[in-house]
């Protein structure tokens, strides 16, 4: 039987558009596995985006695929940082900038809420003292 007689046609997807390296879709699978661990065991994790062999187009594509959710947290700490919820709950896109606006680091954090957004218990205690002092001063 000739090869041509087999009624199966292979469709070659073709080369990815210019600039894309083909590494970004792989990362989506990694994110999926981590979200699974978050859902099953409550395990939080993070992926260092700048440590991956991704081009700028890859990062754009990834950002597009992940989309935007309902929350954007802006952190002003020696340059701005943006913690954006993607369209997938529990998946956050975290970008750290220096005062000049350059990118310091970028992570995808898989957690109910990013670590940076939480208030540390020592800071809460310190704030409580100041609040009590304020109440005392006003009374």
């Amino acid at each position, binding site marked *: 039987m000739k090869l041509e007689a087999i009624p199966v046609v292979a469709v070659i997807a073709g080369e990815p558009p*210019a*600039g894309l*390296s*083909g*590494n970004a879709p792989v990362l989506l699978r990694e994110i999926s596995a981590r979200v699974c661990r978050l859902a099953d065991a409550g395990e939080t*994790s*993070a*992926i*260092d985006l*700048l*440590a991956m*062999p*991704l*081009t700028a187009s890859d990062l754009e594509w990834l950002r597009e695929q992940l989309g935007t959710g309902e929350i954007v947290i802006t*952190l002003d*700490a*020696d*340059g701005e*940082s943006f913690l954006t919820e993607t369209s997938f709950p529990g998946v956050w896109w975290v970008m*750290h900038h*220096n*005062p*000049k606006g*350059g*990118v*310091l*680091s970028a*992570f995808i954090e898989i957690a109910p809420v990013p*670590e*940076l957004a939480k208030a*540390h218990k*020592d*800071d809460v205690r310190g704030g409580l003292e100041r609040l009590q002092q304020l109440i005392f001063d006003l009374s």
Partner: protein
Amino acid sequence: MQGPLIESLARRGISRRNFSKYCATLASMMALPPLAGHAMEKALAATPAPSRRPSVIWLPFQECTGCTESITRSHSPTLESLIFESISLDYQETLMAAAGHQAEEALHAAMKANAGKYLVIVDGSIPLGLDGAYSCIGGRSNVDTLKEVAKDAAAIIAMGSCSAYGGLPKAHPNPTGAVAVSDIIKDKPIVNIPGCPPIPVVMTGVLAHFLTFGTLPELDQHGRPKSFYGETIHDRCYRRPFYDQGKFAKTFDDEGARNGWCLFELGCKGPVTYNSCATIKWNAGTSWPVESGHGCLGCSEPDFWDGGGFYRALSAPANPMQKISVALGAGAVVGLAAAAINRTKKSAAKTGHETTTLEDLEKSK
């Protein structure tokens, strides 16, 4: 995370979140996983405030001052000031206010007061020719100064390719007899931080490690911190997919180059060079040589100046420095063939080239 460091940071207006951000970034730069950033945050924040800051002495020898320039061109004041506020830089000729006899006194006072505990940073190679007369400071040869200051040092950090390997002065024919620090000092721990110049955060990362853990980071066989020099440029290059797909730029500014293809054929030494340029990049993460379209020079490897040529591909045989006895006839044939190849290359480059006029540049504004 309790501890004086986190409190002293708060007093300087640096919040805990700011510190977390810094640690996350530093961990990313040291090619450590995000979890390590959390661990570093805990460790650094818990560092007790020392009653006396560790003393650091900076010795400049046969250098171009590029290494000093590199470290002072830090982009984030927090990252670098954290280090320079945690040490006592007791001698640094470019940055210190003192000069002449006062400067020399400062050096000897710091050495005496911190005997056995001070860190020495060396940049520049040390010439041994003419008994070291090729480079002297205050009438003393560099080699004598190095031996004297190294005697009571805790450790020596060789900053830059010149002090780590000999660098440019050591390139053929090495007229001054330049050598590396490790060629002279044999009885002290030496950390090599090569690069021409090295990336600034590598320097501060090593100091941060010493300040946090009191030890030097893990070193490779060339004495380089593995966290920054553990992988080749090639392994982290964003153009690696193009290398894997066999898409190479043939000349500068051809179509392949404009599409950002691999620069292997244009002499990139990425595959044999260990450094962090591909991840940390330069000038506040702006760019790095390959991203700007030029192949890696291999500046953090020994003898890169004599490596055979910045524009010769790694796969091409390259040892013009070795004495090879070749029959005159064979030599002539090779010469003619090379000339013919070069002519075709040149005409190909000419046809592949697009001239840019002033109007084009104005248009792109």
